[in-house]
């Protein structure tokens, strides 16, 4: 590993930069991208550091080119990453579908901004559906991780590489402008791979062995159907083994927030305030958005009076919450598209739900 991989001491670091440190620590030496706010710190860092580590930084002519360069790099067995935001991620969907179909690992970072269309640069969680429901054509899933702190931007990027390799599938970091732009004290923990995976499928030159083929085209009888069922079985394994969620102050909770990323972060402050007022509030924070923590939500819904789903959009993850429990009358929603709810707003809703006068 490089000297960059394990700087010993605490430092004040931006979320976007923590993603870069995590990627480099995990052995990623290839990055392609195209500039877009609010993630430009990532290509800036990679441009400054990857060439010196013997890697490749390339500013592509577009995000369409970026994702296809990633396909090629991944097919050769190398770890590869890109980052972008809403509009750029949309341009990558065709290539992402090809990578999922070809079963190629890669890490795609979406530091989301407001949409649809060119939208704006305000923080948003409006890309949830695109990230967790497939995004491109043909029916596939990405592994989607949602960090809520600078430290987690680092750790989950390393995990994303490991999971992508383990399951031979692209993994996405779904952040937003706030967790990307904020700075926090950060300590670089050493890279401890969740699993080490051989890549016997990698195209490394066929001298002395049979030719290999990496592709998403299947024209023979039945072949594509078999392929789809195999992918399905893989996604079911991911659901079973890779679901991650953080329970926060759920002991005795009667009101449980369900939120991810920045919305969860703000929700934690509101919970601390609510607890001081004697309201038993807590949180279940999905860390993996695909796989979604269905069982955790199902069990939580049976224990609490209210599940308060908070999102920086008009209601997307709330659909997965509804799918996870039949107790729909316990689900409340607080949405704020393209803006961050303040802790004050969340506390006000918690008070209302607790039957307090405000």
């Amino acid at each position, binding site marked *: 590993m490089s000297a960059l991989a394990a700087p010993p001491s*605490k430092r*004040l670091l931006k979320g976007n930069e923590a993603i870069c440190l995590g990627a480099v620590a995990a052995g990623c030496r290839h990055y392609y991208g195209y500039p877009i*706010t*609010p993630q430009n710190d990532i290509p800036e860092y990679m441009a400054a550091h990857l060439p010196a580590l013997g890697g490749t930084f390339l500013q592509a002519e577009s995000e369409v080119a970026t994702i296809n360069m990633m396909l090629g790099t991944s097919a050769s067995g190398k770890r590869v990453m890109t980052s972008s935001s809403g509009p750029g991620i949309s341009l990558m969907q065709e290539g992402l579908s090809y990578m999922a179909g070809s079963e190629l690992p890669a890490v795609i970072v979406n530091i989301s901004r407001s949409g649809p269309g060119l939208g704006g*640069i305000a923080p948003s969680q409006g890309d949830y559906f695109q990230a967790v429901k497939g995004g491109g054509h043909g029916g596939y899933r990405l592994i989607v991780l949602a960090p809520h702190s600078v430290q987690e931007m680092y750790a989950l990027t390393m995990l994303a590489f490991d999971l992508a390799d383990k399951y031979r599938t692209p993994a996405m970091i779904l952040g937003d*402008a*706030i967790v990307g*732009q*904020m*700075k*926090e*004290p950060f300590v670089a923990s050493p890279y401890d791979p969740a699993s080490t995976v051989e890549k016997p499928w990698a195209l490394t030159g066929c001298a002395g062995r049979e030719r290999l083929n990496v592709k998403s085209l299947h024209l023979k009888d039945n072949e594509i159907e078999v392929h789809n069922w195999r992918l399905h079985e893989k996604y079911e394994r991911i659901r079973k083994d890779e679901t991650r969620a953080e329970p926060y102050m759920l002991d005795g909770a009667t009101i449980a927030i369900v939120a991810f990323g920045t919305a969860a*972060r*703000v*929700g*934690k*402050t*509101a*919970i*601390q305030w609510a607890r001081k007022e004697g309201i038993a509030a807590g949180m279940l924070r999905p860390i993996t958005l695909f796989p979604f923590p269905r069982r955790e939500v199902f069990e939580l819904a049976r224990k609490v009076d209210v599940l308060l789903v908070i999102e920086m959009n008009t209601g997307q993850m709330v659909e997965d919450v509804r799918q996870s429990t039949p107790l729909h009358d316990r689900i409340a929603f607080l949405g704020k598209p393209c803006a*961050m709810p*303040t*802790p*004050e*707003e969340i506390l006000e809703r918690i008070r209302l739900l607790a039957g307090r006068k405000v």
Partner: protein
Amino acid sequence: MTGDIIMAGFGGQGILMIGNLLALTAMEEGKHVTYFPAYGVEMRGGTANCTVVVSDEEIGSPVVGRPKGLLIMNGPSMERFLPMLAPGGDLIINSSLVEERQVTRNDIRLLSVPADDIARNRIGSRQMASMVALGAYVALSGIVKLSTVFDCLPKVISKKYEKFIPLNVNALKEGAALAGFHA
């Protein structure tokens, strides 16, 4: 010590610089801290703002709806942010550029700091205005120690400009003195 502050002014006044310096200082003192800058369209002459949250406990939200501190370096920022300041909160204004009559609230603690005038006349560089204001805020709020801010200056000022560190120290001291604090 727990506190939060929004700092705002023109791009180029050094708002993000002093916010970053305050956050770094808090970290050096072993506190939890978050620093969130406005991003994207900021440039010289535009507007810039940042939010710093300091706490002895783990910090939830890096953004605040009702900050306990507000540092205002120009007129347009006053209109936007003054309504947000928590009752009883600290308001530091750069009275060289912001008129006191713009302060339309009396439920807050106001400290007027002629930051540009002090920077130009007593430090010799108008660029030091934001440091004067930071010195005043640190002294007024006690959120971190002024001496730790001095210690952190070399970490935010590049080698190329390190000869200006003493100027920055003087600027911070001038600001602190206005808050009745003498380093």
